[in-house]
């Protein structure tokens, strides 16, 4: 049909050849699409359309599932939901509202699903699904039974977490109670914390200041809070020794909190009159502005003891190296793993991760607090036990691939691991919603 005029054109052999190839390709394409175009029947309608509540959520979501009978004849789905009472009040003609038009991906497998979000919890919703054909024609809509999202009061999937949080809390509480009854609360020496008195004392002797840097994060970081609890202890020592304590801060709220803390410390040791707000100042929120100030300040004022307790980032090394160059005793504590290397390399003492969080309790020397540290150890024992059980069972399952021992080991391993990685609750608790 289109070949005639093209072949008749006589320009050059080359042109002719190109055209011939073109025509052949076109013909090929045409013949390929022909049977398709002719045989594109309406795809069969979706089957088994179900609508159910999404478990373990605050409501507002429904799970739609359907079966696509003829995958090759389907090119997508159209999902519509019934109009809400509010929408009908606005526009009386509203009945069905299109939610989504999904492409080929939605009908690659026989079982399709889609989560509707923002559904009203207070009324029933119906959903209908129509399969889109290859040429965009729409099969008839299949309607689901009405459903209503349920708000769960308890997230079943978080049961393992609840158990572990409960275990750790209980361990701490039990140890606090035991400590009150006089059970020994001896804990191992932490050299960095034993050095606090020495550092503050040295600063007092030399008539120089004690510098306390509570990190560069705001009060929403637990490390800053932990840093302030350490500040409370250091400030008591400083107040007792009558050492000059300086706390430059990177955040306004931290400044306010640090003032409260230091003031409390002075009151606690019975010397409220020696407290002065002027030593606790806000510098700037900018990480490197703060560190530029600290670097300059340290070089000029030469504090004899420097404490870095809180969340630190790249500035850690600038601080530690400057402190080193002025010969100050430096005690650092942070739970920022990326900065620990620099503190370890450049400070006299470093509290690593958990040691930092235990610092305030250790320094207080109170039985309650020391007891709570022992509670922490119970948590670590749980971790060790779980790791050992998990590893042993996994290893047994690998070495003996068959047999009852292996089955048991495999099961224990599976349950333990899914308990800790959170997949246990989310697979098992589906029926518990509502």
């Amino acid at each position, binding site marked *: 049909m289109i070949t005639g005029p093209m072949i008749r054109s006589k320009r050059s052999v080359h042109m002719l050849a190109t055209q011939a190839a073109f025509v052949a390709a076109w013909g090929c394409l045409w013949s390929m699409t022909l049977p398709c175009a002719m045989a594109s029947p309406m795809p069969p309608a979706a089957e088994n359309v179900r609508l159910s509540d999404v478990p373990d959520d605050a409501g507002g979501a429904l799970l739609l599932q359907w079966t696509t009978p003829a995958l090759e004849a389907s090119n997508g789905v159209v999902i519509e939901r019934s109009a809400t009472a509010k929408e009908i009040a606005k526009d009386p003609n509203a009945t069905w509202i299109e939610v989504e038009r999904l492409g080929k991906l939605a009908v690659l497998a026989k079982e399709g699903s889609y989560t509707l979000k923002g559904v009203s919890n207070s009324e029933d919703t119906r959903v209908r699904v129509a399969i889109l054909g290859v040429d965009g024609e729409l099969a008839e809509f299949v309607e689901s039974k009405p459903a209503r999202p349920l708000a769960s009061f308890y997230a079943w999937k978080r049961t393992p977490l609840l158990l572990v*949080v409960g275990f750790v809390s209980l361990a701490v509480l039990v140890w606090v109670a035991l400590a009150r009854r006089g059970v020994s609360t001896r804990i191992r020496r932490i050299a960095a914390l034993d050095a606090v008195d020495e550092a503050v004392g040295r600063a007092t002797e030399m008539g120089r200041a004690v510098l306390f840097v509570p990190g560069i994060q705001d009060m929403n970081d637990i490390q800053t809070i932990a840093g302030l609890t350490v500040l409370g202890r250091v400030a008591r020592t400083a107040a007792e020794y009558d050492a000059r304590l300086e706390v430059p801060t990177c955040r306004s709220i931290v400044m306010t909190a640090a003032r409260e803390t230091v003031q*409390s410390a002075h009151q606690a040791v019975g010397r409220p009159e020696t407290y002065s707000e002027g030593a606790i100042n806000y510098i700037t929120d900018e990480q490197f502005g703060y560190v530029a100030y600290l670097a300059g300040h340290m070089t000029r004022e030469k504090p004899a003891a420097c404490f870095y307790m809180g969340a630190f980032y*790249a500035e850690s090394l600038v601080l530690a190296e400057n402190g080193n160059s002025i010969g100050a005793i430096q005690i650092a504590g942070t739970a920022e793993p990326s900065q620990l290397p620099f503190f370890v390399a450049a400070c006299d003492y470093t509290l690593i991760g958990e040691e930092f969080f235990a610092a305030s309790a250790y320094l207080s020397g109170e039985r309650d607090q020391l007891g709570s540290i022992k509670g922490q150890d119970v948590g670590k024992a749980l971790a060790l036990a779980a790791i050992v059980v998990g590893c042993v069972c996994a290893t047994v399952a690998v070495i003996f691939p068959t047999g009852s021992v292996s089955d048991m080991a495999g099961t224990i391993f599976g349950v333990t691991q899914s308990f800790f990685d959170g997949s246990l609750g989310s697979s098992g608790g589906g029926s518990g919603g509502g």
Partner: protein
Amino acid sequence: MLKRVIPLVILSASGLILILSYFSPITESLSETVVSWFNILAGVAFVLGAGNLLAVNLEKISSRRPGWAYAAITLVSFCVMLIAGLVKWGAVPNADHPNVHLAGSQDSTQAAYGWAYEYVLSPLTATMFGLLAFYVASAAFRAFRAKNFEAILLLGTAFIILLVQIALGAMLTDWIPANSAFAFLRAESIKAIVTETFQTAGMRAIMIGIALGTAATSLRLILGIDRAALAKD
């Protein structure tokens, strides 16, 4: 009472509410709300920070303490930047609302704020950051002089990792056949072994410890065992 007990009660109550809310889908999003409240609180608290900055520097200037001229520089740059940014000095009008001046954008160097960011703040902070290269070198140099085994282990690992990261490491170990028994000594395998086995193991234990420490610190605060931060007891 108002000064001592109530803050502790508030602290415990808000802590317990947040812990429990995580276990119910209905209240799960409470933490997001609290974070947004905190951001507002931190925003308003800047008044305290700014007030303190002004007070400290004004005091330095008025009492002619050593370095008062630098305090004046801080004060002037702070005030100029703050005012320029609040009134959006030189801002490019918003194309859809050119009549609303404060809707304009001040991110380009055309606006005073954008200029200060581009030519003052950004180079200054970047250079402070860049200084770290020197500090890394001097820290490594000093730690090498330390005589204990731990310091040598730290620096030795750092040195090996640094070597295998650059071309030199590969050059030194390329002669080891990749399928021999000594293939693990090739630069890329050394890096993989150190980072994927040793570093991962160390990190895991550190993270477990940090998590327990965080939990215990939170508990001590919420249960009122550790009152160092707030209570005037």
